[in-house]
C-alpha cells in the first residue's frame, strides 16, 4: 500500500471485500495462535503471590529462618500437587526486621508495590499489632502465625486471621488440668515482665482455680535482668510446681541458677518451650531441666506414635528425629511453632478455592470464605492435629502437647483435647464492614 515514493497514500487505497476477509481470517488465526491463547489466560493461570513478612533480622531471626523453610516446603508441596485452583503459588519475601514500624511498611509494600494476593507469616506480636492497621487499610487479608491472643481478642480488624496456630490464652488454659492433676496444685509463676509474661500471669490463675489449684506467687522478672538468684527466695516454700516462661538469651543462666538454688530437692518444673525454641535441650547448664515438663505446639523430637502425615511433614521441611536440620545437628528448629506456617498455607488454599478466588478483587470473598471455615481434619495438610476454627474471632483451636525431658530428649506424655482450650469469644469480627 506504499506509493512509489515509499509513502502511504490512503486516498488511493481501496479495500476490496476479498482483502477484508483475508485480513479478518488472519486476525482470527492470530488470536487463536498459542501466544494469544496464553495471553488471554494469563489472568487465571498467573501464580498466586503470597507476601511473606519474615523476621529475617532482629530478635525474631531464629524463628524467621525456620518459618521461611517451613513455608517454602509447604509451597513446594502445594505446587507439586497442582497449586491453588490450578495456579502455582509464589512466595514474595520481605524482611520486617522484627520491628512494628517496618512491619507496617512491609505490608504496604506487599499491597501496593508487589501487589501480592495476601500477606502471611508474621510471628512476633508487636509486629502483628503494628502491621494490622496497614492490612485493614489496604483491605488485604493478613494471615499471621503468631500464637498471640491479639487476633482472637478482636482488637485488630476483619482482615487479620490466625488459622494455623492456637493462641496463648488457649494454650495456657489447656495446660491447667494436667498441671493440677499431675504436677501439683500450688503453683509459683516466674515470667518475664512484659507482654509474653503477662499472658501467662493473667490466664493461668483462673484456669488453675477451675481445676482446684492455686497460683500462690507470681514473680515478674525485668527483661533487662541477667542474674536471677535474688528472685528465688521469693518462691514460697510450699510451692509444688514452678511454672516458668523465661525467654531470650538469659534462659540458660536462669535455669543454671535455679539448679544451683535448689540442688536435687526441687519442686516440679513446668515451662513453655518458647523459652528454648531453636536451643539444644542438651546445652550445658540445662541438665537441671531433666525430668521437667514443657508445653509444645508440635513436638520437636520424633515420637514413636507419629502419624504418617507428621513424618511426611518433617521430611518435607527437612528436620531430623531430634528436630534439628537434616545434616546439621546444631541447627535446632522452632518445631513447636513453625508447623503453623505449613497449616496456614493449606487453610489459605482451602479458603481461596472455596471463594473461587481469581485476584485481588476477590479479597473480600476470601475473607468471608475463611470466616466460613469450621474444621481442619488431621492429615497431610494439618500434621500437628485436628483443629476447629471460629470465624467470628478468626482463631483456630487445637490440641497441645505436654512433653517430659527424658534422656536429653522431649517425650510427649500427654495430648490435650481441643475442648480444653476453648473460651468464650470476646467479640465478633464479622460485624465489621469489609
Amino acid at each position, binding site marked *: 500500500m506504499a506509493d512509489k515514493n515509499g509513502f502511504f497514500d490512503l486516498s488511493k487505497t481501496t479495500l476490496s471485500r476479498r482483502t477484508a476477509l483475508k485480513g479478518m481470517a488472519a486476525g482470527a488465526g492470530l488470536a487463536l495462535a498459542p501466544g494469544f491463547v496464553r495471553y488471554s489466560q494469563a489472568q487465571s493461570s498467573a501464580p498466586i503471590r503470597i507476601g511473606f513478612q519474615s523476621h*529475617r*533480622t532482629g530478635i525474631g531471626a531464629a524463628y524467621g529462618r525456620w518459618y521461611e523453610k517451613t513455608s517454602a516446603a509447604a509451597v513446594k508441596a502445594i505446587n507439586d500437587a497442582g497449586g491453588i485452583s490450578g495456579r502455582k503459588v509464589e512466595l514474595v519475601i*520481605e*524482611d520486617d*526486621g522484627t*520491628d*512494628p*514500624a*517496618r512491619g*507496617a*511498611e512491609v505490608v*504496604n*509494600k506487599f*499491597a*501496593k*508495590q508487589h501487589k501480592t494476593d495476601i500477606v502471611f507469616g508474621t510471628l512476633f*506480636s*508487636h509486629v502483628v*499489632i*503494628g502491621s*494490622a*492497621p*496497614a492490612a*485493614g*487499610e489496604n483491605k488485604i487479608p493478613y494471615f499471621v502465625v503468631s500464637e*498471640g491472643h*491479639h487476633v482472637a481478642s478482636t*482488637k*485488630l*480488624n476483619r482482615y487479620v486471621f490466625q488459622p494455623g496456630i492456637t493462641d496463648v490464652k488457649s494454650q495456657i488454659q489447656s495446660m491447667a488440668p494436667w498441671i493440677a492433676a499431675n504436677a501439683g496444685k500450688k503453683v509459683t509463676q516466674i515470667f518475664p*515482665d*512484659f*507482654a509474653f509474661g*503477662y499472658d501467662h500471669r493473667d490466664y493461668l490463675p483462673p484456669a488453675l482455680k477451675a481445676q482446684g489449684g492455686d497460683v500462690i506467687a507470681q514473680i515478674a522478672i*525485668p*527483661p533487662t535482668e541477667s542474674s536471677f538468684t535474688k528472685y528465688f527466695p521469693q518462691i514460697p516454700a510450699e510451692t509444688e510446681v514452678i511454672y516458668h516462661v523465661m525467654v531470650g538469651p538469659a534462659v540458660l543462666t536462669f535455669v543454671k541458677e535455679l539448679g544451683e538454688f535448689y540442688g536435687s530437692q526441687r519442686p516440679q518444673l513446668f515451662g513453655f518451650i518458647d523459652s528454648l525454641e531453636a536451643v539444644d535441650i542438651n546445652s550445658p547448664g540445662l541438665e537441671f531441666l531433666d525430668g521437667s515438663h514443657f508445653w509444645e505446639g508440635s513436638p520437636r523430637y520424633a515420637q514413636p506414635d507419629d502419624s504418617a502425615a507428621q513424618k511426611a511433614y518433617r521430611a518435607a521441611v527437612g528436620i531430623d528425629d531430634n528436630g534439628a536440620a537434616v545434616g546439621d545437628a546444631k541447627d535446632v528448629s522452632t518445631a513447636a511453632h513453625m508447623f503453623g506456617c505449613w497449616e496456614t498455607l493449606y487453610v489459605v488454599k482451602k479458603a481461596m478455592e472455596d471463594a473461587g478466588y481469581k485476584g485481588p478483587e476477590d479479597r473480600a470473598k476470601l475473607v468471608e470464605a475463611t470466616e466460613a471455615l469450621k474444621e481442619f481434619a488431621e492429615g497431610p495438610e494439618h500434621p500437628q492435629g485436628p483443629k476447629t476454627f471460629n470465624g467470628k474471632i478468626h482463631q483456630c483451636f487445637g490440641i497441645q502437647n505436654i512433653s517430659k525431658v527424658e534422656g536429653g530428649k522431649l517425650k510427649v506424655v500427654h495430648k490435650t483435647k481441643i475442648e480444653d482450650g476453648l473460651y468464650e469469644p470476646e467479640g465478633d469480627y464479622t460485624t465489621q464492614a469489609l
Partner: protein
Amino acid sequence: MRDASPAKIYALHIGVIALLFALNFILPDYHQGLFARIMALAVFAMGYNLLFGYGGLLSLGHAMFFSAGLYGAGLTVYHLGWGVPEAFVVGIACGALLALVIGLLALRTSGVAFMIVTMMFAQVFYLLILYFAAWTGGDQGLVIQQASRVVAIGGASFDLTDPTVRYMIALALFSIILLVTLATVRSRFGRVLVAIRENEERTKMLGYDTVANKLAAVVASGAICAASGAAYALLFGYVGSSFASIQYSILPLLWVLLGGAATTLGPLIGTLFMYYVTDITSGFTSAYLLIVGVALILLVLFFPKGVLGSIRERWLGWLP
C-alpha cells in the same frame, strides 16, 4: 551563614513544599504512603535538629518526647474516645510538659552528662510504658481503630486512613514545622541558640540568660517531636513501646547528621535517605543494615557536615 535575601530563602522552602505537594499526584501508591511516613518522621528530626543542630545540645533521649506525643494522642483516643484534633493537642501538650520537666532537671548538666541524663530519663519513660502495660499495651502496643481515625470538620469528614488525606495532613504538619523552624532559626531566639552552641560563656557575658534559652529550646524541641509522635499515632494507627526505645533516640540523631545539622532542610533529606536506603537494600540482602552502615561511613568521609551542611560549606553559603 552568608547573607541572602529572605525572599530567596523562603522561595526555596516554599518550593520544597510545592514539590512535595506535587509528588502526591505523581508518586506510585507505595511511595506515596512511604513519603507520608517520612514527612511525619522528618518533623521528629526537625524537632531534634532545633536542639542539637542549633542549640548544640546532644540528647540521646528524644524517643521519650516522640512517644509522649504518640501515647498522649493514642491513649486519649483509645481509652477516652476523644476526637482526633483534641488528641493531637493532648499529644503535643504531653510532649511540651515532659520536655519542661526533663529540661529543668537535665539542663543542670551539659555535654556528655546531658547526653547520659537524657538517655536515662528516656529509659525510665520506656520502662514506665512497659510497667503500665494494662493501659499502654506494653511492648505489644495498641491499635487505634480505623473508625476512630476520622476528623469531622463542619459538614466534611476526613478519613486519616485514606492515602491522599494522610499524605496531605503529613505534608501540612511538615510544612508548618518547616516554616516555624525556619522563622525560629532566623529570629533573635535562634541566633542566641547558635551563640550558645558556639560559646556559651561568651553569650552569658553578653547578658543572655543561656539557661532560659536552652530550656525554651528543649521545650520547643520536645513539643515538635511530640507533634510528630501524635501525628504518627493518628495517621498510622499504631502505638507501641518500640517507639520509646533507645533506637528511636538514635534515629533522629542519624537523620539530622546525615542531612546536615543546623540546616532547616537537612532533617528531611536525612530521613528520606535513610528510609530509601533501607527500603531498597532490604530487597536484596538481609545484611541491609551493613549497607546502611557503609553508606553512613562514606557520608561521614565525604560529607562530614551532612549532605546539606557540606553543600552549604562548599557551594551555597546562604542556606539556612
